[in-house]
């Protein structure tokens, strides 16, 4: 037979209809395998500073000598202030800043989430650059309590020393803002939100007062995290934190500048994601890549810098780790040098990458190399959806009984002509049945609207009830598909249409999410992968197996697994509280993506499996 005649016969052939699940499986394997290939040298590159104006490490840093004595004095002062009341502490810090010649102000804030209230006051000072035209500013942060809730004695003291030191230089072309927030997550968030608004009206969960003094547009922010006590402690390396809210990252140039200065000019090793010694092996690179994916997909704040990044202000946190021989003056010189480099900038950092995955402090993967992984995973859903759509248009006569059809032994054939080619195909294969789209479309809409219920449960309940909320959600999640399948009786064609529409939407949403937060799209693509493979089946064994597979990969089970695997010490209630705080206070989208995108798709998958069971039980054979 000629090739065109073969292709004509293929139109009705069962091979094409069976192909989509295998293509989807291939897409999932390719997507996961792609990530595993990234740590290799061929798919990653050395970092380099793209912006020519930065000139990292080219300046001689004069921070040293008698500044060390001043630092020690300030550290004792900070220690003394930490023993006093909150108000006295703030007044003390304000006085130190004012004595250095900065214009000072404070900003109280309060967040109310899940019955808990988070209060604090941000204290800050503005140093006006002598050569500045007051249109741009750089921020030096030192949170009073660092991310692990230790008091940041040396960090705050270093910031105060640097403020006094910077005020004596006439080279600054941008204003310098020195910010001392109460804590590492909500203080900077409140400050940055208020800085970029005129006034923020108070809501039930948030009451931030306006920032009384403002400087120009923020160009960059550097945060210091050095919790060593009043007698000091030397450190061995610097951990650089760079994740922002919702997976946004700062421009790679800021990181490259900091790494180049710290490791090049000062000789301090730089690590990422607290990875200790990095031997640049495949395992270490993969481990850093994995940590990066995890923090980016969760999208919560990882340090004081995170709140700045959604406002297009590049920010990093320099955190001291370990016990070594570098002391506070090295850190001070690193900070001074970074600020001198930022000072050189004429425009926002834009030359280097905004989308990257770091393998170690000197190696990164650019977006063109890693984005196809998430796109291919989203493609697996789309391929299955297209296959299901075509299948839903097939006559019941052609479909096997196990899949809900009524195929008979003898199928009527007819000849099909195209030009000069003739082929013999089953008669029903050249016709499509009328698709009844109303019930599937309405069900899909309804399930997506229902997704707001678990979202509300997980974000609005008070702390004690969060665990109960999660248990309720788990119970509802496991029972709802069966209940829906029993009430909405779906024919085989309708079930396939419902699954097809749901998977098309899931594929499109994950593809869009990959442009915004690649890691979240990747993680969700892997966790939701079984949804592309479940099918309606009348066989009890197959349906049970599919049901177990779905239950194991359901959103509530994922929350339990997250706590068990990554936060075993913290406890489930604390994790749920952090997630709720992320949604209400920080504006993190994670919970909406899980309960509003993944959960409805999962419910639809469950309904499709359930409808197979229901049809088997209602039609005795």
């Amino acid at each position: 037979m000629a090739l065109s005649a073969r292709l004509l016969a293929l139109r009705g052939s069962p091979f094409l209809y069976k192909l989509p699940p295998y293509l989807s499986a291939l897409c999932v394997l390719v997507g996961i395998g792609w990530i595993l290939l990234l740590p290799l040298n061929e798919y990653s590159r050395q970092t380099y500073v793209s912006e020519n104006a930065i000139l990292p490490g080219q300046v001689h840093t004069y921070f040293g000598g008698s500044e060390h004595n001043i630092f020690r004095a300030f550290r004792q002062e900070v220690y003394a202030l930490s023993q006093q009341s909150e108000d006295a502490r703030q007044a003390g810090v304000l006085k130190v800043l004012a004595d250095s010649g900065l214009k000072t102000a404070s900003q109280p804030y309060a967040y109310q989430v899940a019955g808990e209230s988070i209060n604090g006051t941000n204290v800050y000072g503005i140093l006006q650059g002598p050569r500045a035209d007051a249109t741009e500013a750089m921020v030096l942060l030192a949170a009073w309590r660092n991310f692990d809730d230790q008091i940041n004695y040396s960090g705050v003291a270093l910031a105060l020393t640097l403020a006094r030191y910077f005020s004596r230089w006439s080279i600054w072309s941008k204003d310098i803002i020195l910010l001392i927030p109460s804590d590492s997550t909500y203080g900077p968030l409140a400050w940055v939100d208020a800085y970029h608004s005129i006034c923020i009206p108070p809501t039930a969960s948030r009451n931030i007062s306006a920032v009384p003094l403002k400087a120009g547009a923020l160009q960059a922010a550097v945060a210091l995290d050095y919790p060593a006590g009043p007698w000091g402690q030397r450190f061995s390396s610097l951990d650089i934190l760079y994740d922002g809210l919702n997976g946004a990252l700062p421009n790679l140039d800021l990181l490259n500048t900091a790494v180049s200065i710290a490791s090049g000019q000062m000789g301090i090793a730089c690590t990422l994601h607290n990875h200790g010694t990095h031997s640049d092996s495949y395992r270490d690179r993969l481990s850093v890549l994995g940590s990066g994916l995890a923090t980016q997909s969760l999208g919560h704040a990882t340090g004081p810098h995170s709140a700045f990044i959604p406002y297009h202000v590049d920010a990093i946190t320099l955190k001291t780790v370990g016990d070594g021989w570098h002391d506070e003056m090295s850190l001070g010189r690193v900070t001074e040098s970074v600020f001198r480099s930022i000072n050189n900038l004429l425009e926002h950092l834009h030359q280097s990458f905004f989308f990257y995955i770091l393998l170690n402090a000197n190696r990164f993967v650019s977006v063109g190399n890693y984005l196809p992984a998430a796109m291919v995973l989203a493609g697996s859903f789309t391929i299955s959806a297209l296959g299901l759509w075509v299948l839903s248009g097939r006559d019941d006569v052609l479909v096997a009984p196990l899949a809900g059809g009524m195929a008979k032994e003898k199928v009527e054939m007819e000849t099909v002509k195209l030009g000069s080619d003739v082929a013999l195909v089953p008669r029903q294969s050249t016709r499509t049945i009328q698709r009844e789209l109303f019930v599937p479309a309405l069900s899909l809409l309804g399930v997506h609207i229902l997704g707001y219920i678990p979202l509300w449960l997980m974000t609005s309940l008070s702390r004690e009830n969060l665990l109960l909320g999660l248990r309720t959600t788990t119970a509802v999640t496991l029972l709802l598909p069966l209940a829906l399948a029993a009430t909405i009786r779906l024919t085989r064609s309708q079930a396939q249409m419902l699954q097809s529409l749901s998977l098309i939407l899931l594929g499109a949403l994950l593809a869009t999410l990959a442009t915004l937060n690649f890691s979240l799209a990747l993680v969700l693509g892997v966790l939701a992968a079984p949804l592309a493979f479940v099918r309606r089946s009348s066989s009890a064994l197959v349906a049970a197996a599919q049901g177990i597979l779905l239950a194991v990969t359901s959103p509530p089970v994922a929350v339990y697994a997250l706590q068990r695997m990554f936060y075993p010490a913290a406890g489930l209630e604390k994790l749920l509280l952090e997630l709720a705080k992320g949604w209400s206070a920080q504006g993190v989208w994670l919970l909406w993506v899980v309960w509003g995108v993944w959960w409805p798709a999962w419910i639809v998958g469950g309904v499709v499996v359930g409808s197979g069971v229901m049809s088997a039980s209602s039609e005795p054979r």
Partner: protein
Amino acid sequence: MATALGRPTTAFTTFFTLLSIRHATEGKLQTSAFALAIASYLSLHPTLLLPPIGLLGYDQLCKSRKPVNDTDGPKSPMRYASTQTDRPKVLDFGTRFFGCFLLTAALLLALSRVLLPSFAFLPSVYLTLLRVPDLTPNPGLWWYFFIEMFDPFRSFFLGVFWLHMLSYSVPFCLRMRKQPLAAVVSMLGITAIFQPYANVGEAGAWLSCLTLLSHTFEVSSTHRYTFPAVAVLLYTSLLGPAFHHLWLYAGSGNANFFYATTLVWNLALLIILTDTVYSVLRDEWEAERPEGKGKDVRQI
């Protein structure tokens, strides 16, 4: 729903345009012209719908008018005013329709003048629509071109863009004079895609109006590209806001990502429009030649 979030005034324009179409289908030319004048007073572009809606009104008027020499009464098989003498005069109809339109427009402008201190509202409302000084990014095609254009060439390109949009109105009426409703809907599509301040609301209104041509959906050989076009619309309506956010708020993308997404959005709408035109014409052709039903077409 997206229109409700954005709260633009095009909701009113769309309402009055649809009202005008409805009255035209009932043959009421005065109310149709009145509604169309209000719509044009709000946004200028419904003026382009004057020829198609006029044709639609005239057509319906012909259908509803009884023949003059009808002696058999209601049982007559000649229900339509099919002869030349029975039809309302074209010039008569045209004058009344356009006259009503112009009169209403003049009345509305006069009312505005009474409420406002001077005639300055005329340039500030209508010249901004014509000269396109505001280039805020929108899902349309114009802003990107005009942002990067040098000033000496601006008026030339303005002329070219407007000429292009104007040039569809009369030809649609001429070709689809047997189905004036199709001409109206197609013209709605042209304005939704090519107007300077394009928005999602008008595109949505036009997509809803496609159901007016549902008689072409049942013909099996028409609407060849619905699925790809709808899939593209789904993806671009998700990616558009994402890239808009990445460009203007997160600062990690640039205008090209967003404009490319709007280009693809408009391409999908255009595919739906051309498919609709094809299906209307195909339907007409198959009505004349029933043996052609179901056959594929080939470009020669």
